[in-house]
Structure formats: C-alpha cells, structure tokens
C-alpha cells in the first residue's frame, strides 16, 4: 500500500484514476490543480505523486520540477493526453527529463497499476 497524491484538473478522469488506485489498495489524496497539489505535498509525505501536465494555474511541468528538485522527494509520474493542437509526446517532453515515469493518456487501468508497482516496489 502506498500513499499517492493525484493531481488532475478533470474531475471525472481524476475520479476514475483514484478509484483504480484505491481498489489496488493504495491510499489516494486528490488535488485539482498544480498549486493545490504542491501545497498538499509540502504538508505531508507521499510515496508517489501522479500529476497531469496541461492544467490551468500551476502546470504539471512545474509540479514535476518542484518535487524533483527537493532532496528525497517522492517518486513522480507525469501523465498527459496533450491538448488541442499539442500532442501528448510534446506535452510530456520536458517533464520526462525529471519524472520517474510518464503515462500517455488514455492508458488502461493495468498500465497504471503496473507503473505504480514498478516505481514503488524498489
């Protein structure tokens, strides 16, 4: 069981990802934008942070860089389906240099659970 912070501005998407993670036995805290996510991350410890990239206010790329610049921070997964006119690959280009893993939306529940397992079992 891991402590996971999930940041995504799309509520139905966040709900589905959180439900999948909870069913796999993880404890999930949800945040609806990058700034709220960073605030929560600074107040308690997480094993893993999963963040969307293209969000209003604080972007997921900033979240990835902020979390990875701190020593002994949590593992970070960046996820994106891109935006209108921006491919997911492009949206994930910058964060992928810092993140521990990237997920290209849409992904299956299995891919999500496997990614979490790979990052937290070591």
């Amino acid at each position, binding site marked *: 069981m891991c402590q996971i912070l999930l940041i995504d501005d*799309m509520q*139905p*998407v966040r*709900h*589905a*990802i959180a*439900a*999948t993670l909870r*069913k796999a036995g993880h404890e999930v805290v949800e945040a609806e934008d990058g700034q709220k996510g960073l605030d929560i991350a600074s107040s308690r410890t997480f094993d893993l942070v999963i963040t969307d990239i293209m969000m209003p206010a604080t972007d997921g790329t900033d979240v990835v860089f902020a979390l990875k610049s701190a020593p002994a921070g949590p593992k970070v997964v960046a996820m994106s*389906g*891109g*935006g*209108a*006119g*921006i*491919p997911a690959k492009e949206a994930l280009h910058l964060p992928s240099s810092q993140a521990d893993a990237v997920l290209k*939306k*849409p992904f*299956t*529940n299995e891919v999500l659970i496997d990614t979490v397992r790979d990052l937290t079992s070591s």
Partner: protein
Amino acid sequence: MPDSSNDGYAALGHLIKGAPDLLKSILEGSPDTISVSDVSQPDLPLTYVNPAFTKTTGYASDEALGRNCRFLQGESTNRDDVARIRKAIEDQKPIDIIVLNYKKDGEPFLNALRMAPIFDKSGRLSAYLGIQRDITQERLREEKEKTQNRLETLGTASGALAHQLNNLLHPIESLISLHLPDIPDPAIRADLDMARYSAHQAADLSNNLLGLSRGEFQNSSESTHLPDALIRTISLVQLMLPATVSIQTDFRNVPADLAIPINETLFAQVLINIITNASQATKHLGIIRIELKKTENTRLQISISDNGPGIEKSDRDKIFKPFYSKSLSKNSSGLGLPVALQIINNIGGIIILSEGLIQPDGHGYGCMFTLDLPNIT
C-alpha cells in the same frame, strides 16, 4: 450607348497612319481569344477569330468562321448560362460569364467569356466582340486550395472535439473495467462489457481524429507516415459517408512506419476524393477495400477497390480530365479527380485504374484506383 466623342478614334487614327497594320497585329497577337461576330446576319456568324482562339479551342479559323459560336457548347454546358448570353445579345448589353465549353477534341474547358456589342461612331450596332480565356487550370488550383483549407479547419475542429471526448471516455472505460470483475451476474457483465467495448471504440476513433489536429493537417512537413495517416484519413472519411457502405482495410503485411513525400492534408484530400467516389459508385451500399503494400524498395501502393458498376476501359483516361465527371453527376464539381491526379503526379506518383472487387451479382467488377507512390522511408 457608348460615348464615341472621345479622342480615342483620333489616337487610333494617328496610330494607324504610323503603322497601318498595328491594330491587326494587336488582335492577332492577343493572348486572350478574340472573336468578332457579324450583326448584319440573323445568327451572328463569326467573321473573325484570332490565333489564340485556335490555340484554346482547337478549331482553325476556317472551321469557325461563318458559324455561330454556340458550336463550343456541349452536353454539360449550363442551359441557364446559354439563356443569359442570348438575353444579353437580345438586349444589346455586354455580358461577363463563365461557361463550360468544349474543344474540338471533345475536352471540356471552363471559358471566362466577355461579350459586348460594338457600336460605331454613329452609335449603330456594328459587331459583337467576344473575349475568352480558358480558366480551367485556375479553377483546379482554387479547388485544391479550397479543399485543403476545408480539411485544415476540419482537422482543427475535430481535434479539439476529440480531445474533450477523450477526457470523457477515459473514466467510462476505466471505471467499467475496474468494477466489471465484481459483477456476479454474467448477463450484466456481458452488458457492461459491451458498454466498455463501445467506449473503447469511441476512444480509438477519437484518437485517430486527434491525430488530424496534431499538426498533421497544418504543418508544412512534406512527408506523410503510413499506415497512421491512412488510418486517420479513413476514420475521417467514415464520418462523411453513410454507415451503409463498408470500408475494409488490410495493412497487415507492411512495416509499421512507411513514409511518402507529400503533405498529409494533400494526401488526405486525394484519399477522401477517391473513397467518396467509390462509395458513390456503389450508391453507398457496397464494399470498399483499402490496401497498402510495399511493391519494391523505392515504391509503395495504396489501392482503393469497390464493387460498384466499374468504369469502361474507354472512359478510364477521361475521368481524370476536368469537368468530365460533371456530366455523370450534377453534384460533382468535376474537378476532384483531376486535382487528385495533379497532386499525385507532383510527387512523382501515378494513379492506375483497373478492375476492382467482384460485383454483388457476380457478373462484373467494380473499380480499383491504385496510387503508386515513391517510398521515402
């Protein structure tokens, strides 16, 4: 009545004095077609055509003189256009009109025609002047650009929509998948599995459309990747066609990433045109099979076959000529295939026409368009 009291006559008189043949040379050398009709005779026979007339229409002057210029009209010439010309002549008014005419060899061309009654200095009607220009090539270029703009707009719009759809479809598929194993009743499980399958199919379609907006339709890249671009275009064309037409594809025996030297918008334009024609040929009830194969290292082929009525061998060259298909369908611009051929020829490709799928009654064959293209993988 035109004002002939200006000093144009004086200037021309002066000009002729210095160079007696200059006016004749101007008419003979004009790049636009110039014709003069005799108003003293009932049917306005042509009394003069310049060399540009022969160049444009294929009729030598001795074949044209003495006849009314309606011999340029043909089966697809719009009768309303003809009536407008007749009315202008009756009213002794000038007219600007674009009319479909036919060359001596039967090839249609789009004629930008200006006709005007010419009055002499005393105000008496003395001739009819016709100035014509073949604007077929201009129309082809316009048609190409228009379709390209339309596709780019469509790509942007469908991409934005697809992005939103993806965000909505992900929770549906994910949540159904998540809870499906917990449903004990197999019948309910089967229902939910169908719902999940549909969401998955919708997400696939949405992803294909997303590709259209992801730069593929707007960028200036001169290469298109196959079969991805083909799959995207087929998704798009399926939205344009009735669900009654069945599109089958086979891309199994080709490498995953092939490239051809063409902008994806232009590629899509060609494909959409040929697939739409194929669907129309089967009255939107038939089968269209699309295959991609690598023929040799430097070429690849995309074939689009249908089980419609097929195209007579004698007509196979003609369908690539501008305005030919207009006579077959009132809705056709008559420029789709000529533009497609031009696009494919421009990148060193050819379009081959042959027999397609066997017809539903088993007696004949539909049509197959094969695009033979340079492979720059």
